[in-house]
């Protein structure tokens, strides 16, 4: 077994081709997040697009790096995440799916 550490998610994401949409296909009602205790979106996203900024005590998310699995929408306990398919052919382009 190799002890060599695996790649970070950021490094992994560098292999994914994405055509960025000007219009966000994910919007979050961040007010609700402040009262959220579980915050499962932080763990479910394989691209780690959701992060909690301790300084501003606020949810930071990045719709541009989305792999479009939509798990965040399913898992949000407060229905704070509104998620839809990106339009105009934008978003992720898997070459080897």
């Amino acid at each position, binding site marked *: 077994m190799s002890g060599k550490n695996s790649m970070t998610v950021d490094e992994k994401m560098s*292999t994914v081709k994405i055509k960025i949409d000007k219009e966000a296909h994910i919007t979050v009602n961040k007010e609700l997040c402040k009262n959220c205790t579980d915050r499962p979106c932080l763990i479910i996203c394989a691209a780690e697009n959701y992060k909690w900024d301790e300084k501003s005590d606020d949810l930071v998310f990045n719709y541009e790096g989305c792999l479009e699995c939509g798990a965040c929408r399913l898992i949000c306990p407060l229905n704070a995440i509104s998620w839809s398919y990106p339009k105009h052919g934008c978003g992720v382009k*898997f070459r080897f799916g």
Partner: protein
Amino acid sequence: MEKTTCIVVGAGPAGSACALSLSRKGIDTILLERGRTPGEKNVSSFVLFMTELKRLIPEWEEDLPVERNVVRTDQAIFTGNDIKMITSYNYDKIDDPITFTAFRRRFDAWFAKKAKDAGAELITGMTVTDLIKDKGRVIGVRVGDEELYADVVVGADGYYSSVGEKAGLITEWDPARCTLGVKEVLDLPPEVINERFQVSDGLGCEMGLWHYNYGKLSFGGTTLYTNTDSVSLGIFARVGELKEKNVKLHDELDKLKQHPFIHNFIEGSTLREYQAHIISHGGRIKPENLYGDGVLLCGEAGGLMDTASGMGVPTCMTSGLMAAETIDLAVKKNDFSAGTLKNYLKFLDTTSMLDMVHESKRYSDSLVGNNAGRANYMADIADSYNNYWNADYMSKDYHPLFLNLYLKAGKFFVPSLIRWIVTPIVKGFSLYKKTVEKIKRKIRSRFYEWKKQYDS
């Protein structure tokens, strides 16, 4: 006002199969795809299953974009230190291929082109945002500000089906009834793949691993299969359990890659592409919600996945073909109401789809209840055959091979077998065939009972 007979939303295996079949029947069809090319939004633990495709496109050999012809498949039970695997090599599939590995980007584009060649109008980069309705009846779709009218709209737009949602057919997306997949495509030289998977150039291996109580998850799956010069490694877990246990699936994938069994296969590879996707459990949508006035659902939008075997592409394709049959009937009747489109269920029932949905739902129920009976069963068979692990000839309790097999594996069969087989055994073993027929009929009647509630 633009109007056509049928709009198929989503150019995946279900949508393209439906559009292809409709066009061949001479029905005007528009096939809408949100990606710039079909397939670029899709991730499969993808083995392309040829049985139906061969019948549908007999000249497939000309240009079907495939990676390797799968002549070896493995099913493994994976519990960390202990792995049991059943392997099947079928060398006669070299001349008569039944499964290929392939990339969705290439396959979906190829398949959509076949629909286009048959006469369907393929429009890509179009994300359906809403349906146009008239008195509860679906009469078209909206793509941003544009409107497109049709007699019937087929929702083949995946798990988050906009068509299903806006038509009111899909109302919930239960995290317990779906699986998240995180996958990596890892570059490896073909000759290394050949050595490690014991295959030759052009021949492939597909491995399904079922995890039981490995890592933090009680149940999960892994797939590992060979492309021409890369291997695809995907891990799957139920979203419900990930949430409950606060587990990052991509961390689990990294851990899995360190496990000696997996590590030996992928050592020295480099990441080509990182992917994530969601897969629904079969039976997610009730049969009564697969159709409505002017609308049909097929593929993942209709939850037409085989959960027990993990197959999706062939089942979705089958449902697309049956949707086309239904529309053909509706065109002939010139009636696109739910009353006519209900025949979709009858058409599905001429195939094994409805049985599959029923079985998948039951399987999904048992997964949600964390029932891992199958793992033990397979492990016991493997342990009986590979009986070194517990051989101790000095012990009086050590059983010879066959007795061991009967005692260890047999108990899993007993409850079902007794119920099914005891009668003909009593009447004589020659009745076996008849009993199988009887069992089938019984299962079908159980299934029809379940179905009846949707028929009236």
